[in-house]
């Protein structure tokens, strides 16, 4: 039901979102008045501060419960965790602007990225279909523009592709939402199955289309086609943000749908297609990585596979599974951001660090970056001593425990395939420098270097202190 006027509006609940939105408004003005050579850092600084503030505000709400705006936005641990992940992605991506992107565009880009972060935050807490839609579209619309922010034709092309495909997918999702609304007579996720037609096939076909939309956003095969092209075309910070924030936010919606909206007694046949998509993604994503020459593109395919991994944890929709999904999501966020940070550290406005050829014999020129990059790649491959390893174990154990052993096996298979691709980069980095004169590498600013180190440390520490948010599930409903 929609909120009646008497419901008093709880602004605290959406304080983080407001903070980000305000920051998004401030950044362009600051950009206007900033001196030419300060624009880059001014934008990053303000954006970063806003993000940190939002993160702080967000953290306070961990304990709170209930919903605001008449059930439109849920509070509590579940929302907070995903919001924090989104903010982490935002902060990490903002740092990438330090080296990439022409200075004059940084201000606008940062503002847009903040806006799309707003969308992601909305999705994290969205507890009815309208909020979901609003969040997804806010996220996407900003990203369309961000994708086109570079002068390269590839960048514009990616924007167009993303726009058309994403809007199409949104169309399917809208229709699905309409059918779900038709099934229950309500837009609240929590009461989807209560309405008169709950038993009708509206619910089923509606969910089907809804899943299609989510699968597209999570870039699950076969709805992944957009991601390699868009990731490659988009500017590096945008790719980084997209690869983490979109997945996180969409996973939040999906989890909420699976855990809160659906009755517990739902027949397994209802969810089977999603797990099949997961399996398919693991194969397609890992296979797709094999012959790539561009890091962003490779990570796009990797993202497809990783999305599959994430779903293994949700298979069987157990409480533990959700925790491990979140654990792995955090790990994934960190390793992805780490990889992109290294790439950015090797990049200039032309994003030289995006081509894999730039990594040949890196170890002899930038041993630190090479070592860290290897660490992140090992983490993506799931090797110790990284959170990727423990994450894999946790995913596998949920897969086995819930009886989805075939997903576990596919996970192993996919990992084996992925190793080719990841190790190929490592191999290139540790190859002996050949005679050819390499282009002079840019010197990355110290914040970037420090952030990379922090990512690395975090990955190692997470292996030994598996902090999964306990009692998260009660928050979902």
């Amino acid at each position, binding site marked *: 039901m929609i909120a009646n006027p008497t419901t008093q509006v709880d602004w605290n609940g959406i304080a983080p979102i407001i903070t980000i939105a305000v920051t998004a408004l401030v950044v362009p003005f600051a950009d206007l008045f900033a001196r030419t050579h300060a624009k880059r850092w001014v934008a990053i600084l303000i954006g970063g501060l806003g993000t940190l503030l939002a993160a702080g505000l967000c953290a306070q709400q961990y304990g709170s419960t209930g919903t605001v705006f008449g059930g439109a936005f849920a509070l509590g641990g579940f929302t907070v965790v995903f919001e924090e992940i989104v903010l982490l992605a935002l902060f990490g991506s903002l740092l990438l602007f330090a080296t990439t992107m022409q200075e004059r565009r940084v201000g606008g880009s940062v503002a847009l990225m903040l806006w799309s972060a707003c969308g992601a935050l909305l999705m994290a807490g969205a507890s009815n279909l309208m909020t979901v839609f609003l969040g997804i579209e806010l996220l996407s619309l900003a990203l369309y523009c961000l994708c086109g922010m570079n002068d390269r034709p590839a960048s514009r092309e990616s924007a167009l592709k993303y726009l058309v495909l994403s809007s199409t997918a949104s*169309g399917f999702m809208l229709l699905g939402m*309409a059918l779900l*609304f*038709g099934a229950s007579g309500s837009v609240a996720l929590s009461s989807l199955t209560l309405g008169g037609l709950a038993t009708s096939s509206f619910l089923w076909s509606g969910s089907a289309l809804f899943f299609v939309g989510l699968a597209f956003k999570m870039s699950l095969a076969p709805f992944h086609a957009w991601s390699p092209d868009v990731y*490659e075309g988009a500017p590096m910070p945008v790719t980084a943000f997209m690869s983490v924030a979109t997945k996180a936010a969409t996973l939040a919606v999906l989890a909420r749908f699976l855990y809160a909206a659906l009755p517990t007694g739902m027949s397994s046949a209802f969810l089977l297609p999603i797990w099949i998509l997961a399996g398919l993604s693991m194969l397609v994503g890992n296979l797709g990585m094999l012959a790539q020459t561009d890091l962003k593109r490779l990570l796009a395919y990797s993202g497809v596979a990783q999305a599959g991994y994430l779903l293994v944890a949700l298979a069987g929709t157990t409480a533990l599974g959700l925790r491990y999904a979140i654990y792995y999501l955090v790990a994934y966020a960190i390793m992805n951001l780490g990889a992109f940070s290294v790439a950015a550290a090797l990049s200039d406005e032309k994003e030289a660090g995006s081509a894999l050829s730039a990594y040949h014999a890196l170890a002899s020129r930038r041993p630190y970056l090479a070592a860290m990059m290897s660490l992140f790649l090992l983490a993506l491959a799931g090797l110790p001593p990284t959170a990727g390893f423990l994450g894999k174990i946790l995913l596998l154990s949920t897969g086995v425990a819930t009886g989805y052993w075939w997903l576990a096996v596919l996970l192993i298979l996919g990992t084996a395939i992925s190793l080719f691709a990841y190790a190929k980069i490592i191999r290139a980095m540790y190859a002996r420098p050949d005679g050819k004169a390499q282009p002079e590498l840019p010197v990355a600013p110290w914040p970037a270097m420090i952030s990379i180190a922090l990512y690395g440390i975090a990955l190692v520490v997470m292996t030994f202190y598996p902090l999964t948010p306990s009692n998260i599930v009660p928050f979902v409903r």
Partner: protein
Amino acid sequence: MDLTVLPVALGDYIGLSLVIFFIGVAGIALRRNPLIVLMSIELMWNAANLLFITFARVYMNNAGHIFAFLVITVAAAEAAIGLAIVVVVFRNAKNVDVDDVRILRG
């Protein structure tokens, strides 16, 4: 539920919106002019709107109406951005054809 509130059978509304929807889908999938593609997208979304309105009526629940308005607003924004991007992409192109944009592949 009470279908008498509808002058026409519920099924017809659904059928109509599905028809519109798939016209839109076909437009996106088959037409090569980006502008028409954008219009087709609008078609899909509006098909959904129609369905929202219908069910809002069925359930006497104006959430559906609100949703529809929301969609229309977003669609406007989306169309604006879309046109902008199309312009940027095809600025120096002779003929406007989505099949020409395929630098990114593999």
